[in-house]
């Protein structure tokens, strides 16, 4: 099993994802440099958080044009597993792999805090080891994480079970107070229709070790490992 972690100029959480996959989960990981073509041979790809190309135009807007991204779009098209975290989520939306957009937080301020996420649907390679309604706890840290989509798209997302995670309170209730950025319908993460591309604003890679305050981020990565293992029959 082999993982690729994309590295754009301005990626910040690439080391965090590498550490989690390599040292916590013992996976075989390589970095995918933005200027190089997508090498193939990957079972799963992660687009990490950060400020790709400085995010000076619009978060994630430049990265979609990078050589490596062209290959990742094709990889996703052929059913490959792609996880986009924070800036990675923004890139997935900009690339058209996921619907909707991420706009400035309702507070107009960067927000860094721990949040609870309610697992809305476990019929995906990214949440298969979680129970529906299960609460995961991990940090958010972003200035542009307010998920927006038009009402028709939001309805489709719901109808198709594409909303995998919503911001919730400690009791599991989705509420305005629990929503750190004003996202529509409390959406924290969605997948595409084919369910092989997943984007979320919170950072599961920062919640994979007890010493850092919790391990519930492992649910996402372990689900992917499990999916890949089943798919490859190994």
């Amino acid at each position, binding site marked *: 099993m082999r993982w690729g972690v994309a590295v754009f100029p301005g990626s910040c959480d690439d080391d965090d994802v590498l550490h989690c996959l390599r040292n916590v989960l013992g996976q075989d990981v390589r970095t995918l440099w933005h200027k190089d073509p997508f090498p193939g041979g990957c079972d799963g790809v992660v687009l990490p958080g950060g400020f790709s190309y400085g995010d000076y135009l619009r978060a994630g807007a430049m990265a979609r044009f990078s050589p490596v991204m062209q290959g990742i779009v094709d990889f996703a098209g052929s059913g490959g597993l792609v996880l986009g975290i924070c800036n990675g989520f923004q890139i997935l939306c900009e690339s058209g792999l996921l619907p909707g957009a991420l706009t400035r937080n309702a507070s107009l301020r*960067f927000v860094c805090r721990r949040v609870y996420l309610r697992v809305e649907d476990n019929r995906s390679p990214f949440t298969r080891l979680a129970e529906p309604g299960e609460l995961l706890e991990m940090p958010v840290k972003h200035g542009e994480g307010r998920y927006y989509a038009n009402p028709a798209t939001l309805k489709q997302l719901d109808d198709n079970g594409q909303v995998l995670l919503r911001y919730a309170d400690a009791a599991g209730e989705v509420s305005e107070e629990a929503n750190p950025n004003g996202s529509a319908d409390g959406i924290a993460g969605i997948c595409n229709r084919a369910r092989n591309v997943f984007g979320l604003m919170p950072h599961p890679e920062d919640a994979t070790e007890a010493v*850092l305050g919790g391990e519930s981020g492992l649910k996402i990565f372990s689900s992917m490992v499990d999916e890949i293992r089943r798919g490859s029959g190994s």
Partner: protein
Amino acid sequence: MSGGTTKDGTAGGTPGNGAASTNLDAAPVTPEVVQAHGLTEDEYDEIRRLLGREPSLTELGVFSVMWSEHCSYKSSRRHLKHFPTQGARVIHGPGENAGVMDIGDGLAVVFKIESHNHPSFIEPYQGAATGVGGILRDVFTMGARPIASLNSLRFGDVRHPKTPYLVNGVVGGIGGYGNCIGVPTVGGDIYFDECYDANILVNAFTLGLVERDRIFTGKASGAGNPVVYVGSKTGRDGVHGATMASESFSEGSEQRRPTVQVGDPFTEKLLLEACLELMKTDAIVGIQDMGAAGLTSSAVEMAGRGGSGVELELSHVPLREQGMTPYEILLSESQERMLLVARPESVEQLQAIFQRWDLDAVVVGRVIDEPVFRVLSEGREVAAIPVAALTDAAPTYDRPAARPARQDEVQRLDEAALPQPENMNRVLEQLLESPNIASREWVYRQYDHYVRSNTVVAPGGDAAVVRIKGTSRGLALTVDCNGRFCYLDPHLGGMAAVAEAARNLACVGATPLGLTDCLNFGNPEKEEVMWQFSQAILGMREACLALDIPVVSGNVSFYNETEGVSIHPTPTVAMVGLLEDVERIARPWFKEEGDLVVLLGSNRGELGGSEYLKVVHDRVAGRPPAMDLTLERGVQRTCRAAVEAGLLSSAHDVSEGGLAVALAEACFGDPGIGAVIDVEPEGRPDVLLFGESQSRIVVSLKKQDYARLQELASTENTSCEVIGRVGGTRLVIGNMVRARVDHLKNLWSTALERCVK
């Protein structure tokens, strides 16, 4: 920025004439021009003596920045010598870009704090952002990967009309830069006092991690080695130093440009990654960032350390603007630039790395044997100055110092004459809502404190804790200074700053490694300010010696005054501690119903300089709490030993707001929990509840562990007394305070946002 004094940021005096078109080199050096460069007549005579001739205008500019307070420490140098800088773990002390300390496992930490006060007042967002950028470069220029930042902020009264604007700008700028470059901001402090109304303080700290045998220094050696410029292009930003308003220069073609540089964290991120990639090779022999005084100070300081000379050809310097004169190129303070000395055979390899990161890397000169700073422009010599004339020969001053007459007056406090509030509940509420005590979450929520996935204790505790990957160890970090104490008694205040920082580290269970200081003071040409400065340093020294903590780096910021009124002396201390086992730590919050609440140290009934006096009685007066360093040491050692032994459920330092506030804060965990405290005042209840006596830590632990804590305390001759029990939903203190924890916590957690949003 390797050095630093003056209203930081822009070093020294540069005349307000960017006048690109005229040939500044040829302009005559008149007495007015000398004065406009912030040089005295005596200093100018010395320059002529050192050169054996008249300097050109360009040379005068070079002298003015290198001899500025900022680069030369001319007023502070003889006082800074008092700091203890030696220690078994010290690898590089003051004098390098940042301090370096051995932490075992083949690793070292590199850290420093630096001010960006004046630029942040003029343009809060960019001033603070470039402050963060500068300190990051100081750390990675030594080969270290930055893994944690702190900041220490002082603003004016929250009711001052400008304060919310400044707070929002500074916090936004720190977050904007730090978040984007991917270095977590794990802690800091922030206080408000009217003495900072027109002179805020923005001090930024960064710590990096480096392999012990891969430390780089800012040294130019090996004649013939190429000098390479990397990073952003050079513009005119910063040339018009903020200090300068020479009439003879400001007429006519004056082009106003912002004197505050604009930060580009994205470029800095590329520069960081490219430099660290380069440092895995053996391509370079020295490296230094271009901070204050830009290309000039980096080249001169590197030559000085290497005992060599440097020759630069300015026509090779990448420029952002056309028509820049040698004067401007040499003195520009454009951000995100570094100067390297490479091995000749490695230039191509070096350039390939920078190209990969889309950055300029250009050979702009070479190291020479002759110890001279020689500058050419299109082959024409525009400056040739002996290196030693710019470094060792820079003037130093023993400025007169005198205790001000009013000091006795400000220290006078007749406690008996203070009206006694009737309702201590109400006073506690008032204090919890004071912007100097209320939760800082509104601030730190705007900083990424998780990136790099090392953060064990996020902001909000006594000290932040980050783990060191690949080891079982951790680092604890804190920044502290009570400016009010320093104003009332700079010697005691200096001691208290060091002691409190060390105490905060003890609360999490860490052993102090070393400290870096940022000495923010008023005008050193005033006797009173020099007295405050020298006293504060002596106080800090005393505490450092008693607690065995070396000073490994630092920065001085003078001239923090407006309309003749100085800020409170504010010698900010950032301290780094080591944890052998990062999983064995304590946090401030009560955890278990039934735990005993124990006070280490004793209540000594001191009200002087307290937040209570200020908030309730509107007084800044009295003597600050006395400092018994033997007791302090005992309290810290006891707490540390108890954390290491796994005895404690919580540990929290008693500071602003005194015992009552410390107890309330200990109740504010998630979820909150109450406590019943059984203490009786010997005299006035307000003195017991809100006095800020030093050397106290509130801990909680299981009843069965108390005997072991007592043993540890008695070994250290430290008093250790059960004062209550954890439990319930209320905080009850004798018959003085009785309040619901959720009510208090709500006031405390929302107050700061209400003040400054």
